[in-house]
Protein backbone atom coordinates (compact mmCIF):
# COMPACT_ATOMS: atom_id res chain seq x y z
CA UNK A 1 0.00 0.00 0.00
CA UNK A 2 1.54 3.28 -1.15
CA UNK A 3 0.69 6.10 1.23
CA UNK A 4 3.75 8.35 1.27
CA UNK A 5 5.12 10.69 -1.34
CA UNK A 6 8.51 9.64 -2.71
CA UNK A 7 10.16 12.56 -0.96
CA UNK A 8 8.63 11.65 2.43
CA UNK A 9 9.56 8.01 1.97
CA UNK A 10 13.20 8.81 1.27
CA UNK A 11 13.43 11.40 4.07
CA UNK A 12 12.08 8.90 6.59
CA UNK A 13 14.34 6.13 5.31
CA UNK A 14 17.36 8.26 6.10
CA UNK A 15 16.06 9.05 9.60
CA UNK A 16 15.27 5.35 10.02
CA UNK A 17 11.60 6.01 10.72
CA UNK A 18 8.95 3.55 9.51
CA UNK A 19 7.94 3.87 5.86
CA UNK A 20 5.20 2.35 3.71
CA UNK A 21 7.47 0.48 1.32
CA UNK A 22 11.05 0.56 0.09
CA UNK A 23 11.82 3.56 -2.11
CA UNK A 24 13.30 3.05 -5.59
CA UNK A 25 16.21 5.41 -6.02
CA UNK A 26 19.96 5.75 -6.23
CA UNK A 27 22.77 8.07 -5.26
CA UNK A 28 24.27 8.00 -8.72
CA UNK A 29 23.21 8.62 -12.28
CA UNK A 30 19.87 7.08 -13.23
CA UNK A 31 19.29 8.63 -16.63
CA UNK A 32 18.12 6.29 -19.39
CA UNK A 33 18.17 6.49 -23.16
CA UNK A 34 14.43 5.80 -23.13
CA UNK A 35 13.98 9.21 -21.53
CA UNK A 36 16.59 10.90 -23.71
CA UNK A 37 15.02 9.55 -26.92
CA UNK A 38 11.58 10.57 -25.69
CA UNK A 39 12.92 14.12 -25.37
CA UNK A 40 14.28 13.94 -28.92
CA UNK A 41 17.86 14.69 -27.86
CA UNK A 42 21.22 12.86 -27.81
CA UNK A 43 23.25 11.65 -24.84
CA UNK A 44 26.08 14.24 -25.10
CA UNK A 45 23.51 17.05 -24.88
CA UNK A 46 22.38 16.16 -21.35
CA UNK A 47 25.71 17.28 -19.91
CA UNK A 48 25.81 20.80 -21.26
CA UNK A 49 22.25 22.10 -20.95
CA UNK A 50 20.52 22.60 -17.60
CA UNK A 51 17.14 22.05 -19.23
CA UNK A 52 18.22 18.78 -20.83
CA UNK A 53 20.00 17.61 -17.68
CA UNK A 54 17.01 18.32 -15.45
CA UNK A 55 14.52 17.20 -18.09
CA UNK A 56 16.20 13.83 -18.67
CA UNK A 57 16.46 13.15 -14.93
CA UNK A 58 12.81 13.98 -14.39
CA UNK A 59 11.60 12.14 -17.50
CA UNK A 60 13.49 9.00 -16.43
CA UNK A 61 12.01 9.17 -12.93
CA UNK A 62 8.51 9.59 -14.35
CA UNK A 63 8.90 6.87 -16.98
CA UNK A 64 9.85 4.23 -14.43
CA UNK A 65 8.27 5.52 -11.23
CA UNK A 66 11.50 6.25 -9.40
CA UNK A 67 11.28 8.10 -6.08
CA UNK A 68 14.08 10.49 -6.94
CA UNK A 69 15.86 12.34 -9.72
CA UNK A 70 19.65 12.63 -9.62
CA UNK A 71 22.00 15.10 -11.33
CA UNK A 72 24.66 15.56 -12.65
CA UNK A 73 25.71 12.51 -14.67
CA UNK A 74 29.41 12.90 -15.31
CA UNK A 75 32.52 13.20 -13.15
CA UNK A 76 34.22 16.01 -15.02
CA UNK A 77 32.29 19.09 -13.92
CA UNK A 78 34.76 20.07 -11.20
CA UNK A 79 37.95 19.09 -13.11
CA UNK A 80 36.66 21.06 -16.10
CA UNK A 81 35.98 24.10 -13.91
CA UNK A 82 39.55 23.81 -12.66
CA UNK A 83 40.83 24.05 -16.22
CA UNK A 84 41.43 20.38 -16.99
CA UNK A 85 38.89 20.32 -19.82
CA UNK A 86 36.23 17.72 -20.63
CA UNK A 87 35.93 15.37 -23.60
CA UNK A 88 32.22 15.18 -24.35
CA UNK A 89 32.33 12.76 -27.34
CA UNK A 90 29.69 14.74 -29.14
CA UNK A 91 30.12 12.79 -32.36
CA UNK A 92 30.13 9.31 -30.78
CA UNK A 93 27.32 7.00 -31.84
CA UNK A 94 27.50 5.01 -28.61
CA UNK A 95 26.90 6.27 -25.08
CA UNK A 96 30.17 7.66 -23.73
CA UNK A 97 30.42 9.62 -20.52
CA UNK A 98 32.67 12.69 -20.51
CA UNK A 99 36.29 12.20 -19.44
CA UNK A 100 39.10 14.52 -18.31
CA UNK A 101 41.55 14.93 -21.20
CA UNK A 102 44.48 16.64 -19.49
CA UNK A 103 45.25 15.88 -15.89
CA UNK A 104 48.09 17.56 -14.01
CA UNK A 105 51.25 15.49 -14.29
CA UNK A 106 52.59 16.26 -10.80
CA UNK A 107 51.20 17.47 -7.49
CA UNK A 108 53.40 20.59 -7.76
CA UNK A 109 51.51 21.78 -10.84
CA UNK A 110 48.11 21.79 -9.16
CA UNK A 111 46.51 25.20 -8.91
CA UNK A 112 43.01 25.59 -7.55
CA UNK A 113 41.15 28.54 -9.05
CA UNK A 114 39.24 30.12 -6.11
CA UNK A 115 36.38 30.99 -8.49
CA UNK A 116 35.98 27.48 -9.93
CA UNK A 117 32.39 27.24 -8.70
CA UNK A 118 31.34 29.77 -11.34
CA UNK A 119 33.34 28.24 -14.20
CA UNK A 120 32.60 25.88 -17.09
CA UNK A 121 29.54 23.69 -16.43
CA UNK A 122 29.27 24.29 -12.68
CA UNK A 123 26.46 26.86 -13.24
CA UNK A 124 24.70 24.36 -15.55
CA UNK A 125 24.48 21.83 -12.71
CA UNK A 126 23.27 24.55 -10.31
CA UNK A 127 20.55 25.53 -12.72
CA UNK A 128 19.55 21.89 -13.31
CA UNK A 129 19.14 21.42 -9.55
CA UNK A 130 16.98 24.57 -9.34
CA UNK A 131 14.86 23.41 -12.28
CA UNK A 132 14.38 19.95 -10.83
CA UNK A 133 13.43 21.40 -7.50
CA UNK A 134 10.81 23.54 -9.19
CA UNK A 135 9.45 20.82 -11.47
CA UNK A 136 9.27 18.07 -8.83
CA UNK A 137 6.88 20.27 -6.85
CA UNK A 138 8.07 18.79 -3.60
CA UNK A 139 6.91 15.33 -4.57
CA UNK A 140 10.04 13.59 -5.84
CA UNK A 141 13.27 13.64 -3.86
CA UNK A 142 16.25 15.32 -5.44
CA UNK A 143 19.65 13.70 -5.12
CA UNK A 144 23.12 14.77 -6.10
CA UNK A 145 26.69 13.64 -5.51
CA UNK A 146 30.25 14.86 -5.34
CA UNK A 147 33.37 12.77 -5.78
CA UNK A 148 35.29 12.09 -2.58
CA UNK A 149 38.67 13.76 -2.10
CA UNK A 150 40.75 10.74 -3.09
CA UNK A 151 38.73 10.11 -6.25
CA UNK A 152 38.61 13.82 -7.07
CA UNK A 153 42.39 13.91 -6.75
CA UNK A 154 42.56 11.07 -9.28
CA UNK A 155 40.43 13.09 -11.70
CA UNK A 156 42.84 16.03 -11.47
CA UNK A 157 46.25 14.37 -11.25
CA UNK A 158 47.46 11.25 -13.05
CA UNK A 159 46.35 8.30 -10.95
CA UNK A 160 49.73 6.60 -10.92
CA UNK A 161 51.31 9.81 -9.55
CA UNK A 162 48.72 9.81 -6.80
CA UNK A 163 49.07 6.12 -5.94
CA UNK A 164 52.84 6.13 -6.00
CA UNK A 165 52.78 9.34 -3.96
CA UNK A 166 50.98 7.42 -1.24
CA UNK A 167 54.15 5.37 -0.80
CA UNK A 168 56.80 7.90 -1.74
CA UNK A 169 55.62 11.38 -0.76
CA UNK A 170 53.18 10.79 2.08
CA UNK A 171 53.15 14.31 3.52
CA UNK A 172 52.83 15.99 0.16
CA UNK A 173 49.94 13.75 -0.78
CA UNK A 174 48.25 14.35 2.56
CA UNK A 175 48.48 18.09 1.96
CA UNK A 176 46.94 17.75 -1.49
CA UNK A 177 44.13 15.54 -0.17
CA UNK A 178 43.36 18.11 2.54
CA UNK A 179 43.03 20.68 -0.23
CA UNK A 180 40.70 18.30 -2.08
CA UNK A 181 38.67 17.81 1.09
CA UNK A 182 38.03 21.56 1.38
CA UNK A 183 37.05 21.65 -2.28
CA UNK A 184 34.62 18.73 -1.91
CA UNK A 185 33.03 20.38 1.13
CA UNK A 186 32.61 23.64 -0.80
CA UNK A 187 30.83 21.92 -3.70
CA UNK A 188 28.74 19.62 -1.51
CA UNK A 189 27.62 22.41 0.82
CA UNK A 190 26.69 24.51 -2.20
CA UNK A 191 24.44 21.74 -3.54
CA UNK A 192 22.88 21.29 -0.11
CA UNK A 193 22.23 25.02 0.03
CA UNK A 194 20.47 24.72 -3.33
CA UNK A 195 18.06 22.35 -1.62
CA UNK A 196 18.92 18.79 -2.60
CA UNK A 197 17.27 16.15 -0.42
CA UNK A 198 20.25 13.80 -0.12
CA UNK A 199 23.88 13.85 -1.16
CA UNK A 200 26.32 11.04 -1.90
CA UNK A 201 30.06 11.28 -1.60
CA UNK A 202 31.38 8.90 -4.22
CA UNK A 203 34.83 7.79 -3.13
CA UNK A 204 34.86 5.14 -5.79
CA UNK A 205 38.58 5.09 -6.41
CA UNK A 206 39.40 3.97 -2.90
CA UNK A 207 38.22 0.35 -2.71
CA UNK A 208 40.66 -2.28 -1.59
CA UNK A 209 41.10 -3.55 -5.13
CA UNK A 210 43.18 -0.36 -5.47
CA UNK A 211 44.55 0.67 -2.07
CA UNK A 212 45.17 -1.21 1.16
CA UNK A 213 42.94 -0.87 4.24
CA UNK A 214 45.90 0.75 6.00
CA UNK A 215 46.25 3.30 3.23
CA UNK A 216 42.50 3.87 3.35
CA UNK A 217 42.73 4.71 7.01
CA UNK A 218 45.66 7.07 6.39
CA UNK A 219 44.57 8.90 3.25
CA UNK A 220 40.79 8.53 3.02
CA UNK A 221 39.07 8.02 6.35
CA UNK A 222 39.99 11.24 8.13
CA UNK A 223 39.11 13.39 5.14
CA UNK A 224 35.73 11.71 4.71
CA UNK A 225 35.03 12.16 8.43
CA UNK A 226 35.73 15.86 8.07
CA UNK A 227 33.43 16.07 5.06
CA UNK A 228 30.50 14.33 6.74
CA UNK A 229 30.88 16.45 9.87
CA UNK A 230 30.72 19.56 7.65
CA UNK A 231 27.54 18.60 5.78
CA UNK A 232 23.87 18.41 6.66
CA UNK A 233 22.09 15.07 6.80
CA UNK A 234 21.31 12.97 4.91
CA UNK A 235 24.63 11.97 3.41
CA UNK A 236 25.73 8.70 1.88
CA UNK A 237 29.23 7.30 1.42
CA UNK A 238 29.48 5.27 -1.77
CA UNK A 239 32.46 3.12 -2.64
CA UNK A 240 32.40 0.62 -5.46
CA UNK A 241 34.67 -2.37 -5.86
CA UNK A 242 36.08 -4.27 -2.90
CA UNK A 243 34.78 -2.89 0.42
CA UNK A 244 34.57 -5.90 2.74
CA UNK A 245 37.87 -5.03 4.42
CA UNK A 246 36.97 -1.37 5.03
CA UNK A 247 33.23 -1.46 5.71
CA UNK A 248 33.66 -0.83 9.43
CA UNK A 249 35.92 2.17 8.81
CA UNK A 250 33.40 3.43 6.24
CA UNK A 251 30.77 3.32 8.95
CA UNK A 252 32.98 5.34 11.31
CA UNK A 253 33.18 8.30 8.92
CA UNK A 254 29.81 9.63 10.05
CA UNK A 255 27.86 9.21 6.81
CA UNK A 256 24.16 8.57 7.37
CA UNK A 257 24.20 5.58 5.03
CA UNK A 258 26.70 3.38 3.22
CA UNK A 259 26.35 2.40 -0.42
CA UNK A 260 28.28 -0.58 -1.75
CA UNK A 261 28.32 -2.55 -4.98
CA UNK A 262 27.99 -6.22 -5.80
CA UNK A 263 31.49 -7.03 -4.57
CA UNK A 264 30.44 -6.41 -0.97
CA UNK A 265 29.21 -9.34 1.09
CA UNK A 266 26.19 -7.59 2.61
CA UNK A 267 25.35 -10.48 4.93
CA UNK A 268 28.81 -10.18 6.48
CA UNK A 269 28.68 -6.37 6.49
CA UNK A 270 25.38 -6.50 8.31
CA UNK A 271 26.88 -8.80 10.92
CA UNK A 272 29.81 -6.42 11.38
CA UNK A 273 27.75 -3.22 11.51
CA UNK A 274 24.55 -4.37 13.18
CA UNK A 275 20.97 -3.61 12.18
CA UNK A 276 20.95 0.11 12.88
CA UNK A 277 23.31 1.13 10.06
CA UNK A 278 21.69 2.00 6.74
CA UNK A 279 23.19 -0.15 3.97
CA UNK A 280 22.24 0.58 0.39
CA UNK A 281 23.09 -1.66 -2.53
CA UNK A 282 24.17 -3.81 -4.13
CA UNK A 283 23.29 -5.17 -7.56
CA UNK A 284 25.39 -5.00 -10.69
CA UNK A 285 23.42 -2.53 -12.82
CA UNK A 286 24.97 -3.47 -16.14
CA UNK A 287 24.53 -7.20 -15.70
CA UNK A 288 21.05 -6.90 -14.20
CA UNK A 289 19.49 -4.18 -16.30
CA UNK A 290 21.26 -4.64 -19.65
CA UNK A 291 22.49 -8.21 -20.04
CA UNK A 292 20.01 -10.26 -18.07
CA UNK A 293 16.68 -11.58 -19.24
CA UNK A 294 13.95 -9.49 -17.57
CA UNK A 295 12.56 -12.62 -15.89
CA UNK A 296 15.77 -12.98 -13.86
CA UNK A 297 15.77 -9.43 -12.45
CA UNK A 298 13.28 -10.22 -9.68
CA UNK A 299 15.64 -12.83 -8.21
CA UNK A 300 18.57 -10.41 -8.12
CA UNK A 301 16.57 -7.69 -6.39
CA UNK A 302 15.02 -10.08 -3.87
CA UNK A 303 18.47 -11.40 -3.02
CA UNK A 304 19.67 -7.85 -2.19
CA UNK A 305 16.68 -7.37 0.12
CA UNK A 306 17.04 -10.82 1.71
CA UNK A 307 20.71 -10.18 2.40
CA UNK A 308 19.84 -7.06 4.36
CA UNK A 309 19.98 -3.80 2.39
CA UNK A 310 17.68 -1.00 3.49
CA UNK A 311 17.16 0.18 -0.07
CA UNK A 312 18.13 -1.58 -3.28
CA UNK A 313 20.69 0.62 -4.98
CA UNK A 314 22.56 -0.13 -8.16
CA UNK A 315 26.29 -0.51 -7.50
CA UNK A 316 27.07 2.20 -10.03
CA UNK A 317 25.26 4.47 -12.49
CA UNK A 318 22.34 2.82 -14.20
CA UNK A 319 23.71 2.24 -17.68
CA UNK A 320 21.67 4.52 -19.96
CA UNK A 321 20.93 1.68 -22.40
CA UNK A 322 19.19 -0.30 -19.65
CA UNK A 323 16.33 -2.39 -21.02
CA UNK A 324 12.92 -0.97 -20.24
CA UNK A 325 11.43 -4.30 -19.13
CA UNK A 326 14.39 -4.94 -16.81
CA UNK A 327 14.11 -1.54 -15.14
CA UNK A 328 10.38 -2.10 -14.75
CA UNK A 329 11.04 -5.48 -13.11
CA UNK A 330 13.54 -3.79 -10.75
CA UNK A 331 11.00 -1.15 -9.71
CA UNK A 332 8.14 -3.64 -9.36
CA UNK A 333 10.17 -6.04 -7.21
CA UNK A 334 11.42 -3.31 -4.87
CA UNK A 335 7.88 -2.04 -4.35
CA UNK A 336 6.35 -5.47 -3.72
CA UNK A 337 9.12 -7.33 -1.93
CA UNK A 338 10.21 -4.17 -0.12
CA UNK A 339 6.93 -3.96 1.78
CA UNK A 340 8.50 -5.89 4.62
CA UNK A 341 10.81 -4.04 7.05
CA UNK A 342 14.53 -3.88 6.37
CA UNK A 343 17.11 -4.23 9.15
CA UNK A 344 17.38 -0.51 9.91
CA UNK A 345 13.99 0.75 8.75
CA UNK A 346 10.57 -0.43 9.92
CA UNK A 347 7.26 -0.29 8.07
CA UNK A 348 4.07 1.53 8.94
CA UNK A 349 1.51 -0.97 10.19
CA UNK A 350 -1.31 -1.68 7.73
CA UNK A 351 -3.88 -0.01 10.02
CA UNK A 352 -1.86 3.20 10.22
CA UNK A 353 -1.53 3.25 6.47
CA UNK A 354 -5.30 3.36 6.04
CA UNK A 355 -5.59 6.12 8.64
CA UNK A 356 -2.94 8.22 6.91
Amino acid at each position, binding site marked *: MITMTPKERIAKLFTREPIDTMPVFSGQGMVTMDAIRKMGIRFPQVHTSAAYMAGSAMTTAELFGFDAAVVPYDMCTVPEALGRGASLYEQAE*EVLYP*TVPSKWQTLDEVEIDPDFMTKARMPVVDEAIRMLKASSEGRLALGTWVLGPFTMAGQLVELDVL*LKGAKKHKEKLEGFLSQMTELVIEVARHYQDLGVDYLSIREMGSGTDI*ISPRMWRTFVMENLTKIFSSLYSPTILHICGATDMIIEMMSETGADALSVDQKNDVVESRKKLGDSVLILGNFNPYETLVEMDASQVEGVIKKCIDEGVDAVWPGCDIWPEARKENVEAFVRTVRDYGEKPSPAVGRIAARERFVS
Partner: protein
Amino acid sequence: MAQGDLRDEFNKALSDAVVNMDEDAARETAQKVIEEGLSAYDAIMNGLAAGMEIVGELYDTHEYFVPELLLCADALYAGLDILKPHIKPEEVGTSAKGQVVIGTVQGDVHDIGKNIIKMMFEVAGFTVHDLGRDVPLEQFVEEQMKTDSDIVALSAMMTTTMMGMKKVVEMIKARNPHVAIMLGGAPVTKDVTELFGADGYADSAGNAVQEAIKMVSRLREMQGGTK
Protein backbone atom coordinates in the same frame (compact mmCIF):
# COMPACT_ATOMS: atom_id res chain seq x y z
CA MET B 1 82.23 -17.70 -7.89
CA ALA B 2 81.08 -19.99 -10.70
CA GLN B 3 79.09 -18.28 -13.40
CA GLY B 4 76.03 -20.41 -12.61
CA ASP B 5 76.10 -19.30 -8.98
CA LEU B 6 76.57 -15.71 -10.02
CA ARG B 7 73.64 -15.98 -12.40
CA ASP B 8 71.44 -17.37 -9.62
CA GLU B 9 72.59 -14.67 -7.24
CA PHE B 10 71.87 -11.88 -9.72
CA ASN B 11 68.52 -13.32 -10.72
CA LYS B 12 67.49 -13.48 -7.07
CA ALA B 13 68.72 -9.93 -6.51
CA LEU B 14 66.72 -8.72 -9.51
CA SER B 15 63.63 -10.59 -8.35
CA ASP B 16 64.04 -9.15 -4.84
CA ALA B 17 64.54 -5.65 -6.23
CA VAL B 18 61.20 -5.90 -8.06
CA VAL B 19 59.39 -7.35 -5.03
CA ASN B 20 60.94 -4.74 -2.71
CA MET B 21 60.17 -1.86 -5.12
CA ASP B 22 63.86 -0.99 -5.18
CA GLU B 23 64.74 0.78 -8.45
CA ASP B 24 68.36 1.41 -7.46
CA ALA B 25 68.99 -2.25 -6.64
CA ALA B 26 67.39 -3.32 -9.93
CA ARG B 27 69.57 -0.87 -11.85
CA GLU B 28 72.79 -1.85 -10.05
CA THR B 29 72.21 -5.59 -10.42
CA ALA B 30 71.28 -5.24 -14.09
CA GLN B 31 74.52 -3.37 -14.63
CA LYS B 32 76.48 -6.17 -12.93
CA VAL B 33 74.78 -8.75 -15.18
CA ILE B 34 76.08 -6.87 -18.22
CA GLU B 35 79.56 -6.34 -16.73
CA GLU B 36 79.88 -10.06 -15.96
CA GLY B 37 78.83 -10.94 -19.50
CA LEU B 38 75.80 -12.93 -18.36
CA SER B 39 72.64 -13.33 -20.44
CA ALA B 40 70.47 -10.22 -20.33
CA TYR B 41 67.49 -12.22 -21.55
CA ASP B 42 67.89 -14.78 -18.75
CA ALA B 43 68.12 -11.96 -16.20
CA ILE B 44 64.91 -10.40 -17.54
CA MET B 45 62.92 -13.61 -17.63
CA ASN B 46 64.26 -15.39 -14.55
CA GLY B 47 65.09 -12.33 -12.48
CA LEU B 48 62.78 -9.40 -13.19
CA ALA B 49 59.77 -11.34 -14.52
CA ALA B 50 60.10 -13.96 -11.79
CA GLY B 51 59.97 -11.09 -9.27
CA MET B 52 56.82 -9.73 -10.89
CA GLU B 53 55.30 -13.20 -10.62
CA ILE B 54 55.77 -13.01 -6.83
CA VAL B 55 54.28 -9.50 -6.88
CA GLY B 56 51.18 -10.88 -8.63
CA GLU B 57 50.81 -13.47 -5.87
CA LEU B 58 51.23 -10.80 -3.18
CA TYR B 59 48.48 -8.79 -4.86
CA ASP B 60 46.20 -11.82 -4.88
CA THR B 61 46.74 -12.41 -1.17
CA HIS B 62 46.04 -8.72 -0.36
CA GLU B 63 49.58 -8.05 0.83
CA TYR B 64 50.22 -5.73 -2.09
CA PHE B 65 47.77 -3.29 -3.67
CA VAL B 66 47.93 -1.11 -6.79
CA PRO B 67 50.44 1.46 -5.39
CA GLU B 68 52.86 -1.38 -4.63
CA LEU B 69 52.28 -2.89 -8.09
CA LEU B 70 53.18 0.43 -9.69
CA LEU B 71 56.39 0.79 -7.68
CA CYS B 72 57.36 -2.83 -8.42
CA ALA B 73 56.77 -2.05 -12.09
CA ASP B 74 59.08 0.97 -11.83
CA ALA B 75 61.81 -1.25 -10.39
CA LEU B 76 61.26 -3.76 -13.18
CA TYR B 77 61.55 -1.04 -15.82
CA ALA B 78 64.74 0.29 -14.17
CA GLY B 79 66.36 -3.11 -14.72
CA LEU B 80 64.73 -3.71 -18.08
CA ASP B 81 66.02 -0.43 -19.55
CA ILE B 82 69.59 -1.55 -18.87
CA LEU B 83 69.21 -5.19 -19.90
CA LYS B 84 67.05 -4.87 -23.00
CA PRO B 85 69.68 -3.44 -25.38
CA HIS B 86 71.90 -6.44 -24.57
CA ILE B 87 69.45 -9.20 -25.50
CA LYS B 88 70.87 -11.49 -28.16
CA PRO B 89 68.27 -12.20 -30.87
CA GLU B 90 69.04 -15.95 -30.89
CA GLU B 91 68.16 -16.17 -27.17
CA VAL B 92 64.67 -14.82 -27.62
CA GLY B 93 63.70 -17.43 -30.20
CA THR B 94 60.83 -17.23 -32.62
CA SER B 95 58.04 -17.37 -30.05
CA ALA B 96 58.73 -13.93 -28.67
CA LYS B 97 59.08 -12.06 -31.90
CA GLY B 98 55.42 -11.24 -31.89
CA GLN B 99 53.84 -7.83 -32.00
CA VAL B 100 51.00 -6.51 -29.93
CA VAL B 101 48.72 -3.51 -30.30
CA ILE B 102 47.54 -2.22 -26.94
CA GLY B 103 45.37 0.64 -25.73
CA THR B 104 42.48 1.81 -23.56
CA VAL B 105 39.28 2.23 -25.54
CA GLN B 106 37.54 5.49 -26.36
CA GLY B 107 35.79 7.09 -23.42
CA ASP B 108 38.20 5.62 -20.90
CA VAL B 109 41.27 7.36 -19.55
CA HIS B 110 42.28 4.72 -16.99
CA ASP B 111 45.52 3.13 -18.08
CA ILE B 112 47.20 1.53 -15.08
CA GLY B 113 46.14 -2.02 -15.98
CA LYS B 114 47.02 -1.39 -19.61
CA ASN B 115 50.49 -0.18 -18.67
CA ILE B 116 51.16 -3.25 -16.51
CA ILE B 117 50.14 -5.59 -19.32
CA LYS B 118 52.26 -3.56 -21.72
CA MET B 119 55.25 -4.00 -19.43
CA MET B 120 54.80 -7.76 -19.29
CA PHE B 121 54.58 -7.94 -23.09
CA GLU B 122 57.81 -5.96 -23.27
CA VAL B 123 59.43 -8.29 -20.77
CA ALA B 124 58.40 -11.23 -22.92
CA GLY B 125 60.13 -9.69 -25.91
CA PHE B 126 57.10 -8.52 -27.85
CA THR B 127 57.20 -5.38 -29.89
CA VAL B 128 54.45 -3.26 -28.33
CA HIS B 129 52.49 -0.65 -30.26
CA ASP B 130 50.93 1.39 -27.46
CA LEU B 131 48.07 3.56 -28.71
CA GLY B 132 47.63 5.16 -25.27
CA ARG B 133 44.23 5.84 -23.76
CA ASP B 134 40.87 7.14 -24.96
CA VAL B 135 41.65 5.52 -28.32
CA PRO B 136 39.03 5.72 -31.10
CA LEU B 137 37.90 2.17 -31.90
CA GLU B 138 38.89 2.24 -35.58
CA GLN B 139 42.47 3.04 -34.60
CA PHE B 140 42.94 -0.43 -33.09
CA VAL B 141 41.88 -2.01 -36.37
CA GLU B 142 44.07 0.29 -38.46
CA GLU B 143 47.13 -0.28 -36.26
CA GLN B 144 46.67 -4.06 -36.29
CA MET B 145 46.47 -4.07 -40.07
CA LYS B 146 49.41 -1.70 -40.44
CA THR B 147 51.69 -3.70 -38.14
CA ASP B 148 50.22 -7.16 -38.79
CA SER B 149 50.30 -7.71 -35.03
CA ASP B 150 49.46 -11.12 -33.58
CA ILE B 151 47.73 -9.77 -30.49
CA VAL B 152 45.41 -6.85 -29.80
CA ALA B 153 44.98 -6.01 -26.11
CA LEU B 154 42.06 -3.73 -25.23
CA SER B 155 41.46 -2.19 -21.84
CA ALA B 156 38.35 -0.58 -20.34
CA MET B 157 38.00 0.33 -16.68
CA MET B 158 34.32 1.14 -16.86
CA THR B 159 31.26 -0.77 -17.96
CA THR B 160 30.27 2.30 -19.89
CA THR B 161 33.24 1.96 -22.22
CA MET B 162 33.45 -1.81 -22.30
CA MET B 163 30.88 -2.04 -25.08
CA GLY B 164 33.35 -0.40 -27.44
CA MET B 165 35.51 -3.51 -27.13
CA LYS B 166 32.84 -5.63 -28.78
CA LYS B 167 32.97 -3.51 -31.89
CA VAL B 168 36.76 -3.72 -32.07
CA VAL B 169 36.67 -7.51 -31.68
CA GLU B 170 34.11 -7.78 -34.48
CA MET B 171 36.01 -5.45 -36.79
CA ILE B 172 39.34 -7.21 -36.29
CA LYS B 173 38.03 -10.77 -36.38
CA ALA B 174 36.12 -10.01 -39.58
CA ARG B 175 39.37 -9.03 -41.27
CA ASN B 176 41.68 -11.55 -39.64
CA PRO B 177 40.20 -14.30 -37.44
CA HIS B 178 43.67 -15.41 -36.34
CA VAL B 179 44.47 -12.27 -34.36
CA ALA B 180 44.33 -13.06 -30.63
CA ILE B 181 42.34 -10.48 -28.69
CA MET B 182 42.82 -9.92 -24.99
CA LEU B 183 40.38 -7.81 -22.98
CA GLY B 184 41.25 -6.19 -19.70
CA GLY B 185 39.60 -4.04 -17.04
CA ALA B 186 37.37 -4.16 -13.99
CA PRO B 187 34.06 -4.84 -15.79
CA VAL B 188 35.44 -7.60 -18.01
CA THR B 189 34.39 -11.14 -17.10
CA LYS B 190 34.81 -14.55 -18.71
CA ASP B 191 31.21 -14.30 -19.98
CA VAL B 192 31.83 -10.89 -21.54
CA THR B 193 34.99 -12.21 -23.18
CA GLU B 194 33.08 -15.09 -24.71
CA LEU B 195 30.13 -12.91 -25.66
CA PHE B 196 32.41 -10.46 -27.43
CA GLY B 197 34.31 -13.26 -29.18
CA ALA B 198 37.68 -12.40 -27.62
CA ASP B 199 40.37 -14.88 -26.60
CA GLY B 200 41.47 -13.91 -23.09
CA TYR B 201 40.79 -11.48 -20.29
CA ALA B 202 42.06 -9.89 -17.10
CA ASP B 203 39.70 -8.13 -14.70
CA SER B 204 42.17 -6.32 -12.45
CA ALA B 205 45.72 -5.04 -12.45
CA GLY B 206 46.77 -8.06 -10.39
CA ASN B 207 44.92 -10.39 -12.68
CA ALA B 208 46.53 -8.63 -15.62
CA VAL B 209 49.89 -9.45 -14.12
CA GLN B 210 48.82 -13.05 -13.67
CA GLU B 211 47.50 -13.35 -17.22
CA ALA B 212 50.62 -11.81 -18.66
CA ILE B 213 52.76 -13.98 -16.41
CA LYS B 214 51.00 -17.10 -17.70
CA MET B 215 51.96 -16.00 -21.15
CA VAL B 216 55.54 -15.27 -20.08
CA SER B 217 55.70 -18.56 -18.19
CA ARG B 218 54.60 -20.48 -21.26
CA LEU B 219 57.32 -18.72 -23.14
CA ARG B 220 59.90 -19.60 -20.50
CA GLU B 221 58.81 -23.25 -20.55
CA MET B 222 59.09 -23.36 -24.30
CA GLN B 223 62.59 -22.03 -24.09
CA GLY B 224 63.61 -24.28 -21.22
CA GLY B 225 64.28 -21.42 -18.82
CA THR B 226 64.41 -22.18 -15.14
CA LYS B 227 63.62 -19.99 -12.18
